[in-house]
């Protein structure tokens, strides 16, 4: 297994799938000549040419819709949003066209498209550039949503997303692009959608999470271990489809659960998961399920305020302590 970065893993996934299927093309702002705003598409223009690595004007609604149309007639577009914050301009095409055309046409037109790009907060980018949008995307039937936390998951999930016959929203971590990790070399390595991954085994408390919060949770778990607490971390990897069975397995194991996510609390992913846990495993719980989220405010710029707004190792530990009655 090679050790590569998250961005290299995404690059490999794109290159391998484009090699494998001539219907796959990448379109977005700065993906070609500039090699990608985050260098995910580095070298791909030289390798695949201008028809398959397509630089667009700044016109998110336009090129997202172009992708949906192309997908309806059998191409497999990968649409890169420079960030998912900008994808909001394209949401009519994502929610009203891509998510619904298969249903509205009673199965005549499917839409095999991937909408990918970074999501969530980085550092001091303030309110319009620091948003975790997965709960919004996950709300719409017809879409699939995945959010990898490691280089291996990034590669395996992107390959699965490109091969999927439905529209997949693919949320990358802006702060993860430089992260290194082991990635299997086999060309047919994929991580199927809808399969969670236990990133850390534990027995005392379950931390269910997704995306880059996995790493904050791992840090929290390492600290808690010093206090003799064994935390299990379940990385959902896909939010729709959802591996609820993996969540329930962990609940049955520890009987104490928190959900940690980057997004806002109200109608967040955690709210849904808590509802499902109480309805399906009420008797297994030794404490009400806890939640850790971003503060319920637009993300501020000032360092100190931003730190207060973001979910932190300390808040994760505090939430675990609460369900452990410590």
């Amino acid at each position, binding site marked *: 297994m090679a050790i590569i970065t998250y961005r290299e893993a995404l690059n490999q996934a794109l290159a391998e799938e484009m090699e494998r299927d001539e219907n796959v093309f990448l379109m977005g702002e700065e993906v070609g000549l500039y090699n990608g705003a985050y260098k995910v598409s580095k070298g791909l223009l030289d390798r695949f040419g201008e028809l398959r690595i397509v630089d667009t004007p700044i016109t998110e609604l336009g090129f997202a819709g172009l992708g949906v149309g192309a997908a309806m007639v059998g191409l497999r577009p990968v649409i890169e949003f420079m960030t998912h914050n900008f994808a909001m301009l394209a949401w009519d095409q994502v929610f009203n*066209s891509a998510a619904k055309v298969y249903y509205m*046409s*009673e199965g005549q037109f499917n839409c095999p498209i991937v909408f990918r790009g970074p999501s969530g907060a980085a550092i001091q980018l303030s309110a319009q550039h620091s948003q975790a949008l997965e709960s919004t995307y996950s709300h719409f039937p017809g879409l699939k949503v995945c959010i990898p936390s490691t280089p291996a998951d990034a590669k395996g999930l992107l390959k699965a997303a490109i091969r999927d016959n439905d529209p997949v929203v693919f949320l990358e971590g802006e702060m993860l692009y430089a992260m290194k990790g082991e990635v299997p070399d086999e060309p047919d390595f994929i991580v199927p959608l809808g399969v969670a991954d236990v990133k850390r085994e534990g027995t005392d408390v379950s931390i269910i999470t997704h995306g880059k919060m996995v790493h904050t949770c791992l840090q929290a778990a390492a600290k808690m271990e010093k206090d003799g607490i064994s935390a299990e971390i379940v990385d959902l990897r896909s939010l729709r489809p959802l591996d609820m069975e993996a969540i329930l397995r962990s609940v049955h194991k520890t009987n104490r659960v928190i959900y940690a996510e980057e997004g806002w609390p109200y109608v967040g992913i955690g709210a849904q998961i808590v509802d499902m846990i109480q309805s399906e495993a009420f008797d297994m719980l030794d404490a009400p399920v806890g939640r850790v989220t971003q503060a319920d405010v637009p993300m501020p710029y000032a360092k100190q305020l931003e730190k207060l707004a973001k979910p932190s190792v300390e808040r994760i530990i505090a939430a675990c302590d609460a369900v452990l009655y410590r």
Partner: protein
Amino acid sequence: MAKSKTALQNAEEKPSSDSNGLDGLDKAKLHTMLYQMLLGRRFEEKTAEAYAIGKIGGFCHLYIGQEAVTIGAFAALRPDDYVISAYREHVQALSKGVTPRAVMAELFGKADGCSGGKGGSMHLYSKEHNFMGGWGIVGGQIPLATGFGWAIKYRGEDRVCLCFMGEAAVNQGAFHESLNMAALWKLPVIFIVENNRFGMGTAWERASSLYDISQKASAYDMPSAVADGMDVMHMRSVVAEAVERARTEKTPTLIEARCYRFMGHSMSDPVHGVYRTKEEVEQHKEKDPIRRFIDQIKEVGLLTEEELQEVDARVHREVDDAAEFADAAPEPGPEALYRNVYASGDVNGRLYFDGRDRT
């Protein structure tokens, strides 16, 4: 003015390409066009009746008065060309070859409808006929058309895509973004703006700083034309020129088709009263595109009264048959509710959160 604007700048000044204005089309082709126009008219009349007695629900937008735009444009197409439209699209689906039965059954919300009863009036689809819908958000279909154009270019085909929209869609960002991409990347898409004068109840001059829609093409260095949307032959010739250019030079075109809707915006909107007068509507009805076409081909001896009666009788029979078929067709059963939400629905984990796939 766009430097590449075609000679057909003004509908009022349009030249005729041959002496009788019929562009050398043979009798069979002219009769097909007449049949399609009459079918569209009678179908929409039947639709209004069915709506009035509650057989059709939801929003329903009729095309009466605008038939020449579609039938003229389609006379320049091949069956493998793509057509996409907004939500006033019944007649476009019919003219692309979807059967009256399949369209009417869809309006009735029946399983035999062309969208299985899932779409209704605003979302008619037929992959078989390259009829790409049927879209309900004003302007939302325009970027999709560039996607079909992109796929044509990607595969090196010589098909084209016609993209219909109402004039009110022109003010949406999707219009601007799509025309820019189509011109920039040379996509074979013909954007046909059906200017029926009103975006629901708002007259065009109350909605746009620029009256002449075709001039907007100059912003994209795109060829453009104004067509008389009440004249089926003029529509055909303007669209044929654009189609030829799209097939050979891969160039998009913006066409403004000036027309008029004889009915209200939707079934809940009266024909006149609030935003237009009865006199105005009556005045435009004088220019009924079907009557005009009938007179035109009769005058040159290519249609007799008997032939006209035969076509009309056939159309009446087909429309009655469609309504009877739709009425008798089965409703989609409960098993249809979760069908075709996902193409790859057989996945790990749960796709639905209402308890359906709880294990």
